[in-house]
């Protein structure tokens, strides 16, 4: 994971006792907390509380994907969401990745038909996920 972090991020470590101003600068309220900011310092993803390694890795990918999505880099975002599904299909990030992968594809192609398959996929693979509920209106 260290290699992934060094390769994909500028990593910052802020200890609440050593740097309380830095802790409050980003409206942090709890530790551990990890934020993913875009290159302009705008928060794009927040992870509060401990997560096991695979879950944390999947959340890091969600954050990088969100950065790409907000930069309208649709293909990059779609590829990153696909990577979550390939590498961490059992993570809690996976159903969210299914949802946003489809949205990224739609945004990049204007092909709305991709959204129609999402409710079935989420119902089959992640029926208890909130993302299965969020995709219900897309059912074709």
């Amino acid at each position, binding site marked *: 994971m*260290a290699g992934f972090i*060094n390769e994909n991020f*500028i990593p*910052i*470590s802020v200890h609440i006792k050593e740097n309380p101003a830095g802790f409050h600068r980003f409206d942090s309220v709890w*530790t551990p*907390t990890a934020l993913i900011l875009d*290159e*302009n*310092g705008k928060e794009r993803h927040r992870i509060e509380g401990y997560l096991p390694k695979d879950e944390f890795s999947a959340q890091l990918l969600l954050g990088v994907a969100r950065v790409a999505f907000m930069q309208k880099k649709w293909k990059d975002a779609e590829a990153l969401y696909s990577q979550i599904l390939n590498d961490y299909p059992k993570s809690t990030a996976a159903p969210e990745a299914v949802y946003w992968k489809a949205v990224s594809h739609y945004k990049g192609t204007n092909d709305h038909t991709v959204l129609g398959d999402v409710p079935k996929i989420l119902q089959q693979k992640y029926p208890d996920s909130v993302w299965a509920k969020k995709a219900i209106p897309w059912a074709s």
Partner: protein
Amino acid sequence: MAVSWNKDIDAALNQAKTQHKPLLVDFSAAPA
């Protein structure tokens, strides 16, 4: 391999802008 953590937030923000990379900010209360 260890993560190359920065301690200077403003320097890291400038570095991110220059290198066009996102930032990962880790807030911890754990003993060093």
